[in-house]
């Protein structure tokens, strides 16, 4: 019986749907036009948490499409070129998925380094796409600030991985 339970596939709504919804809500909240002591709110890329965590938890057919949809949401909501964030998130998802066997069992600080690396890859892809689409080089300092703000979201990714990594033993 316990074996049956352990091989039961994850409910997509729980590990894909709800986190995606939370990422959308987070994006909405940080788009509030407010300045606190003259400083604007940071603008991290919330779906990056999912691109990393979903790839570490297990391979999935639905996850890449949800990532593209989340990327499309970011493009539409932030007013950027369509496809920019979808392709950027998929780039890091693919790399993390391909190297997930290396990451499994790593300590938290090590995983955090991996997350920062994946975020850097996403930002680099976005940088290259934006350069080609707009025929201009994006400001490196602004790219760095967004990278930093996104890297600080690792605790959310860690929580998601801890919650669902052991839920399906076929992919450990």
């Amino acid at each position, binding site marked *: 019986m316990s074996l049956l339970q352990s091989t039961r596939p994850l409910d997509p709504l729980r590990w894909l749907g709800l986190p995606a919804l939370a990422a959308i809500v987070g994006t*909405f909240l940080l788009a509030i036009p407010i300045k606190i002591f003259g400083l604007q709110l940071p603008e991290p890329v919330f779906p990056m948490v999912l691109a990393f965590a979903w790839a570490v938890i297990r391979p999935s057919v639905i996850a*890449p499409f949800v990532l593209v949809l989340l990327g499309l949401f970011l493009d539409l909501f932030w007013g950027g070129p369509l496809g920019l964030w979808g392709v950027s998130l998929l780039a890091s998802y693919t790399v993390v998925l391909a190297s997930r066997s290396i990451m499994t069992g790593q300590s938290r600080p090590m995983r955090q380094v991996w997350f920062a690396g994946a975020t850097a890859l996403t930002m680099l892809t976005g940088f290259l796409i934006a350069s080609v689409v707009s025929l201009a080089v994006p400001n490196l300092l602004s790219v760095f600030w967004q990278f930093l703000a996104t890297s600080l979201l690792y605790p959310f990714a860690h929580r998601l991985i801890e919650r669902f990594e052991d839920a399906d033993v076929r992919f450990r």
Partner: protein
Amino acid sequence: MRLSFRDRSNFDMKVPLTWTAGVAVIIAAVIGVALLLGDRRETLQIQAYGVTKNVVDTLSAPVSNTLATPGRWTGNVFDLARDYLMAGSQNHQLRDEVGDLHVWQDKAIAMENENQRLRAVLGLKTDPPIPMVTAHVIADSRGPFADTRLADAGRGQGVTPGNPVMSERGLVGRVIGVGHDVSRILMLTDIASRTPVLIDRTNARAILSGDGGPNPKLAYMRGQDPVKVGDRVLTSGDGGVFPRGLPIGVAVQGLDGAWRVRLDSDSSPIDFVRILLFTDFSQIAEQKDALASGLPPLSAADAAEVAARVKTLSAPAPAGPATPPKTTAAAAANASATAKTLANALAASKTQAQPKHLPPPTPATTPPPDDETQ
């Protein structure tokens, strides 16, 4: 009990999900690239913005507006707290500024007086006021790859793509997408933004290019030393997207050596914006109105003169040659047409008692009741 393929010796195969997931990634990537190739964000055409973007803007507007409302309140609280804590240093700074401003005020009064006299001497016509709409900013994206705002005024308020947008201090960008009650503003700092500008001191032209950072670059400058630190930068009006002379900011030199602009709009929060209902220079010249309304109405004196001329033209011609030359016939036809036009003008002047230089307002340019004019 059959658990999986793995437990059957003659079907020793793994669950193929890894491969299927790989295929899914490739398909998703193809979709993403197709979206990227199909996007035409950089153009000003309405069709380029797309129905999807308009729908998303319209749907996200009420959500963002609801979220932004308490944000505005807390923002005010933070501002009050900062003002309280910084009152001493702010007071000192404001005293210095008031001292400087008195000097500028005197200069401004003298220049305004001189300006009026010169205009009178030259008989210059000043630009007519541009109607504008005030809007709240309800969502804000500030990333390196997209820098836009959502404002809660749209097609219903007369906003169209291309309209310039100003904060209380200066130009912030232009409208690139319009829904019924919402519009998307492309900021000057966005990587896709290109704005024709001039340096106030030298009249040198440049293109202000956003790069996702806070200070956009001055590109394609011409001439020797066309700019120095502290020069005022204004819109040049070249290309007809913006009217000439809107304040943008002050020239500064970046760490990379490139000339950049410190935007005037950065000095205050961009919570309210004014959308100028300006489309191009033909609107300033009021050609559209002139064409739509026919000839402008006449004053009473002019009407009397026209009536006399109409009478003269309508009177039978004196006896002449039996077969008039062709040119005379054409002239007669022209005279008849002119008489008709003048008669129409006379009728219009009787029905509309307006000054000669003011054409009647049309719905297209009439500002909504809560609008302001520059």
